[in-house]
């Protein structure tokens, strides 16, 4: 039958090329995987860079939306918590906090990642982080956001920033997707209100307008 579409084409597990889903495939121990992923990232981090940091708060500089932002966080603080709790950038939402739902999607050097599966200290190596706040200047709407409004691709809207960011990243790489490709590409985001019909239309239309990827 009915081959099940792959939920996700682009791994979003952070900067080590370790996607959460690849990781799950490897271990089959999904229940505690949230913690394990984090540890794995930490290990990867410490292998590449010494000295060891923490466990207390450490100063880090994140490049967010074109600006360097200094903050002090514990090494275990996720990028998502750093954004939301320390920098008041609350466009990325916390829903599952373990790489399942996509509500926390931001761009890391242009690639969509789940900000809840990456540590802030790992995102502080000069990578360019783009949050939804950085897509368009205040009072303006990015074309993908505008297409979401036009096609009512949102109800409560809590999943919406994640979908918008995933769509922006995808359209940059794939400016002319089909309806089916969009459906596959956004499989890493979940919506409870059931806005998928609008999302499909919005992303395809944003692509048709040829503005999808450029802000």
């Amino acid at each position, binding site marked *: *039958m*009915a081959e*099940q*579409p792959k*939920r996700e084409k682009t791994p979003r597990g952070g900067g080590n090329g370790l996607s959460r889903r690849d990781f799950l495939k490897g271990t089959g121990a*999904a*229940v505690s995987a949230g913690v394990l992923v984090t540890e794995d990232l930490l290990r990867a981090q410490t292998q590449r860079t010494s000295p060891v940091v923490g466990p207390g708060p450490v100063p880090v500089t994140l490049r967010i939306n074109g600006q360097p932002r200094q903050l002090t966080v*514990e090494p*275990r*603080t996720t990028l998502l*918590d750093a954004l*939301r*709790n320390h920098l008041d950038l*609350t*466009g*990325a*939402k916390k*829903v*599952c*906090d*373990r790489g*399942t*739902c996509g*509500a926390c999607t931001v761009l890391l050097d242009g690639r969509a990642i789940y900000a809840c599966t990456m540590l802030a200290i790992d995102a502080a190596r000069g990578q360019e982080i783009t*949050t*939804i*706040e950085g*897509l*368009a200047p205040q009072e303006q*709407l*990015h074309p993908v*956001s505008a297409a*979401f*409004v*036009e096609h*009512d*691709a*949102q*109800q*409560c*809207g*809590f*999943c*919406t*920033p994640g979908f*918008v960011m995933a769509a922006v990243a995808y359209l940059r790489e794939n400016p002319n997707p089909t309806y089916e490709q969009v*459906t*596959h590409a*956004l499989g890493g*985001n*979940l*919506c*409870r*209100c*059931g*806005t*998928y*019909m*609008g*999302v499909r239309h919005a992303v395809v239309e944003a692509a048709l307008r040829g503005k999808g990827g450029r802000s």
Partner: protein
Amino acid sequence: MAETPKPPAQATIEWPPAGRRRLIGQRISRLDGPAKASGRAKYSYDVNRPGMLHAKLVFSTQARARITAIDTSAAEKMPGVRAIHLILQPGAEVRWVGQEILALAADTEEQARDAARAVKISYEPLPHLVADVPPEQAGTERVQQLREQTEGDPDAGLQQADVIFEGEYGCAVITHCCLEAHGQVAEWNEDNLTVWASTQNVSGLAPQFAQGLQAAGIPVQASQVRVLTPVMGGGFGSKFAADTWGVACAALARKAGRPVKLMLERDHELLAAGSRPSMYARVRVGAKRDGTLTVWHSESWGTGGPSAAGTPNLPYVIGAGRNPVLPKRSRHTAVFTDIGPARAWRAPNHPQMCLITMCALDDLAAKLQMDPLDFFLKNLQYTERPEVYREELLKAADLIGWREKWRPREEALRAKGPVKRGLGLSLHTWGGRGHNSTCQVTIHPDGSVEVAIGSQDLGTGTRTVIGIVAAETLGLPLEAVTVKIGSNEYPPSGASGGSTTVGGVSSSTRDAATNALNQLLAKVAPALGVPAEQLEAREGRIQVKDDPSRNLSWKQACARLGTTPITASGQTQASLISSGVGGVQMAEVAVDVETGIVRVEKMVAVQDCGLIIDLKTAESQCYGAMIMGICYALYEEKIMDQLTGHCLNPDMEFYKLAGIGDIGELVVHMMTGPRYEERGVIGLGEPPVISPGAAISNAVANAIGVRVPYLPLTPDRVLAALEAKGGAV
């Protein structure tokens, strides 16, 4: 909630007739869309206040136990910890894993989590039941038989039947899984409390906070509690109360003298913040050879956790009509379990009743060797609105291609290859009468307009509906109206549950805007030289009805107010609203009989809801409900482990929701126009979420020739049903 509002003082207030509407019924984008799609909208979870602390809850790890000791000594000494609030005391009994025991607040989220982990709770375990078992296996102290319902002569009905079908059906406990977790930020300013709450009940929360805090020894009155919810991330019936965590959050903020944020973690959200009761039934249903139903018998049961979840009314839709009466006997037994409390879940009890009824009737039709479409058409006299359902059934059949595609069960199963296709249908109903709502409209001398209602927008489009009605009534573009909702400082309005909001707020807004406009017309009538009754507001002007060339622009008219704005209030108007809708859904599925995987290929929803205010958000409600329906039909189940008493899937990997690739092609058709619109506004949030489970289950039965009795229709259940029948072909 659905009391009949007071009759209006003057002439009966009406909606503009079809030809005169400029905005009502159009496809209009939601007003808060740009704020949401740009990430600028601030949900309760996003509120960060200066000096704010983060709180975490410690909850029961036992399904049933007595708390023997609570040791917070280590937690108190942890870095950053500022306050601890006990919700339960030693000696108290806990009734589910996830029941809140205490809350604590610390400077950072990480510190709060560490401290919560350092709290030691000792328990004396008690026997628990978390398995979803029938009453005879639950033990007498855990069951309560609810009212038996008898109509007509059910024994005679059995005698008259030529064909009788007996079957068992049901659906598991599921959760609400709102993407914005339950919770709030609480901040005190002297003795006044502000709560940014993720709630469906802005106007009704303050008394609950006051009561809860008083019980915790903090004297505060409802008048001192301000509740703010400009946007919220989903409720679906689970967010009406202040809740233990709300009171705990405010108490912590009081103790610490700092604002506190307490949002539930995802596991807790799924364990304790709302679930939909299960329902199962053994059904006996009979009909004449020509398909006319003669009788319904059912023995049903289900669990809503520690308390009963109401008596279902079986059969559903078919058999609800009074003329003729379908003879029936139905009994329901509630089973009390330790799985956590149920909360209203979008259309409480309806999806379950619908599943049991529509599946049993579909199986009876199969036994009669009738096309279910013909069978249902034949029995519409047993419904409350035969004409509506007939029209909707034919429309839906047309949209899904029923007559061309439908095959009898056996034939579908003989199709080549492992993938079998099938069609199923279902009928549903809902009330949806507008709740009590009050509205205030202010027209300022500079022409600006404000509409204020103590309501909330759950994502249904409430804010936009209010704006559309006000703008339509005042003859202004939508952008000229500022809609203010999401605060209990605005005129009180009902909670958003049961599809009651759109009727309430649209009619109170129409009333208030009409009253405000009448004041304005009276003010400017002398300038236009006619009595106020001969004036109307259209296209940004106040003009003479018979001679539109005599007019004032809106701005000019408002300038005549001098320095005093007009304020007028309005309330829910019975003449503008109604209740009771019918809907039909049909599903086409593909089932792989080797893997057991079910895929929804296409679904059609045909729905009436009276006068539609915003067609775009109305259609979104239907699409969203169908998708939510696919979720509970195929994936969702709160899986409990009887041995440990724990929920096995309190996370979003294993508590499955449909993704964008799982929904197939969805088609929505709204019944509009004459005979529908004159009924006025009727709620739409619940009805389209009721039928998907039944329609999909019936489609699967049609595809594989055997009933998969329980939702969700997971591969293991599909394969087990095939196995019981003797395998696929």
